[in-house]
């Protein structure tokens, strides 16, 4: 049975499934804290959970899950959790193709539902290589299309951006394509957000 609200783990607020959140961070601890809490919260609520990161590894997840009373190995084997390197997933064949990524998200959601999961969540840390890789200029288009996709395939999604690796103008542009953002640990509505229908029509 589909869930009506989800907990993100790093805030007491709850949200309907399918929210698209942006986190701008500048400290590794801040990044790690949100990531781990978000993943374990997903597992605890029985959601199919996926993580794309260059920095997180199995050891980090395993030790955190153990401290939360969760069995990482078992969850991995059951397909309840997946961990992959951002660049392997996002930059397959050394280029960024939004359509392929959107298809991947769509299938992830459909598979989760077909496997009986009540919801699905993804957390991905964007690699700074997006700024130089072929197709990287379509990042904002992709993020905007993710917002559209989530309306029909309500994956709860958190996009992490390291402020130390992107220039200020890009960070603001990234905010424009995320309806929600994390400010000092709280999820707030993003006043810079431009609805995808408007943004993509530009």
């Amino acid at each position: 049975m589909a869930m009506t609200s989800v907990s993100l783990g790093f805030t007491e607020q709850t949200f309907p499934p399918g929210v698209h959140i942006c986190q701008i961070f500048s400290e590794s601890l801040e990044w790690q804290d949100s990531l781990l809490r978000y993943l374990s919260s997903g597992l605890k609520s029985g959601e199919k959970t996926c993580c794309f990161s260059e920095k997180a590894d199995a050891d980090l997840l395993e030790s955190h899950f153990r401290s939360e009373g969760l069995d990482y190995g078992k969850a991995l084997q059951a397909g309840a959790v997946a961990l992959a390197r951002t660049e392997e997933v996002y930059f397959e064949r050394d280029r960024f193709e939004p359509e392929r990524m959107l298809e991947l998200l769509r299938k992830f959601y459909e598979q989760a539902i077909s496997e009986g999961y009540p919801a699905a969540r993804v957390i991905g840390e964007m690699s700074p290589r997006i700024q130089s890789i072929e197709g990287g200029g379509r990042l904002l288009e992709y993020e905007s299309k993710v917002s559209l996709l989530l309306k029909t395939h309500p994956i709860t999604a958190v996009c992490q951006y390291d402020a130390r690796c992107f220039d200020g103008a890009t960070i603001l542009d990234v905010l424009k394509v995320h309806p929600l953002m994390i400010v000092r640990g709280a999820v707030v509505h993003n006043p810079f957000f431009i609805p995808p229908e408007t943004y993509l029509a530009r």
Partner: protein
Amino acid sequence: MSDPEVLGRILVMQSVVSNLPDEEGMFGFICRGLEDVPGVTSVSWEPQAPAEASGALRKPVKMGTKEFGALVFEIAQKDLFCPYEPYLDNFCFMVAVILEGRFQRQLNERQTASLTRSLAELEKAHLKIIESEKMAVLGQLVATIAHEVNTPLAAIRSSASFLLQDLVGRSEAMLDFSRSLELEDFTWFKSLLARKPREYAAGAGSRARRHRLSQALEKAGVVDPEAMADDITLLADPNGEGALVDAVLRGKGEVVRQAARFLETIHASTIILEASDRAASTVADLVGYSHGQEVNERTAIDPAKELNTLLRLFPGLSLKGLGIVREFEPGLMVQGDRDKLNQVWINLINNALQAMEYHGNLILRTRSVENGAEIVVANDGPPVPDDLKEKIFQPFFTTKRPGQGTGLGLDICLRVVGAHHGTLTLTQEESLTVFRVFLPD
């Protein structure tokens, strides 16, 4: 865009800019974020005020007198922009506050890092000094031990080697020789053996004596007159050598020779004993030194009585030319560790006697002074040179001849007196070299 939207954006920007790592990133974000403020065409950041004023609206990012550049707004419709101007002024001030906080934090971090580095360097230098001092003391210690132990060991080795050869080769011959003597000669031989062996004296006078004896014996036809002269010198002083020369001339040279060999053996044994004692004493000094000079049980001590008793331990005090002056305050008592303090008095008296070479006056004085008692050991021998006045208190420093001291005596005195919370000072008072010990009540 509505007012709440603009205000919301400004609020969010305030939160996000504090997350951005540098000024360039911050202002890139801010300029992009403010582009959509009604009436604005573009926004840029000027780190420094331009030389010439432009037509654009310049909003300084300023806190007090400190300015972090300015946001420059190109305005297309001033009437649309005007309502937001006060909010943007406040926003610029908040950005300045963030930048100043960041500047102060970086300053603190730099200062902390610099202090940490300085501390680490100081610690390193400190350890190096300690290490080098340790090595210096160790070097002195090794040199002292090596010298003090090697010298007697060399004497022991040489004497033992002589004894071994002599005993193996001569014991049988000595017995045969004794048996061959007439009763009268045997009695005389025994009396010679009972003599205390004299050392072969060095120096020009002694060489002249042996040379004179050797010439006389040669003239009288004695075989190997030089060896016989050595034997006679060993057995008798100049006053007694005539009787031995007569005996040799009467054909009793072999008795003299055998007696001299025997006394040489005894002499070698004595050297071994003395050298062993000296090595043992050095080791005992070092062991005692390393055990520290903590004060054990404190008792009431009469320093005059102790000094008088200790003086008896020193041989040679009755020598002509040496005077002992005692100036003791009757009834004066001090509190302390008797054994440790006696070690101090012994060291000070011994130093004084050696410094004055047992010639002149040794002055011992005890008296009450404010808050305690004073014990003085002084001598009118040669003064301690100014450049050595501090050094003589350092461990392993000595002005004595090799074998006469480890250089630990005064350091031990300092440590014992210090453990009694007292002081030990050296002063030159006219012709007197004065070591003054103060012991508090």
